[in-house]
């Protein structure tokens, strides 16, 4: 364990973050965009745990931040999926470009 430097874990989480961000930019399926957001949240969780472990190993702040992020992500996914189901009922599609009533 002590042979893995902190920067390697930060590189992993950075790469995951930008894979999620690319998905958020380029997909038009609302559910896949939501999955990209989950990917971004998980990369942030890895960052919190790594900093907690490497910089302040006696504290638990990063672990609790991650637990609350997971809880909020669960609530967010439930509400977002309710919105997506309602949108699908009105538009009969999950293309984000079809939901344009409030665009102009």
């Amino acid at each position, binding site marked *: 364990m002590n042979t893995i430097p902190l920067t390697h874990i930060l590189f*992993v989480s950075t790469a995951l973050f930008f*894979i999620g961000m690319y998905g958020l930019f*380029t997909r038009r399926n609302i559910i896949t965009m939501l999955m990209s957001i989950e990917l971004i949240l998980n990369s942030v969780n890895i960052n919190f745990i790594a900093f907690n472990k490497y910089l302040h190993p006696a504290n638990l702040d990063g672990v609790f931040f991650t637990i609350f992020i997971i809880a909020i992500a669960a609530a967010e996914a439930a509400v977002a999926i309710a919105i997506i189901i309602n949108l699908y009922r009105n538009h009969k599609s999950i293309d984000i470009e079809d939901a344009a009533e409030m665009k102009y």
Partner: protein
Amino acid sequence: MSITVVLFWFLTALALLSAIMVLLSKNPVHSVLWLIVVFFAISGHYILLNAQFLAIVNLIVYAGAIMVLFLFVIMLMNLNAETEPQKNTWLKLAGAISGGSLLLILVSVIRSATDMTGRTAQVGEGNIGLISNLGKALFSEYVVPFEISSVLFLSAMVGAVVIGKKD
């Protein structure tokens, strides 16, 4: 090369490859399954970082609950590769360029951060992520955010039911 280093690189490669496959697969069901593989790899990272409780919570909540919700919705809407909307290649190129340049900037920031170079984890005190320590801290220091998150869950539940019901 010790076993933890080999495990770290294996889990890293697994996480990155399956994250790329989440975005590349046309079928949304395959995307969800690849995302579950990503979550398993991230849980492995948590175990390597000595946060065992968090690894289990990550598996149960993300891979167990949220991803099942996604799968149910995708199957309810009967989505497949044919209904997948496609963006044009110019937008894909623009997304790759903007995301890639931001990635480049952040990687160079990490590389030049002198505070973080040479930091390694302490191996000896390995019981900080176990459930008894976490529970003691959660119900003493973090009891206010804990109770607030219960209110958040109640409001999210009510909101999901209100938004999702047929009117």
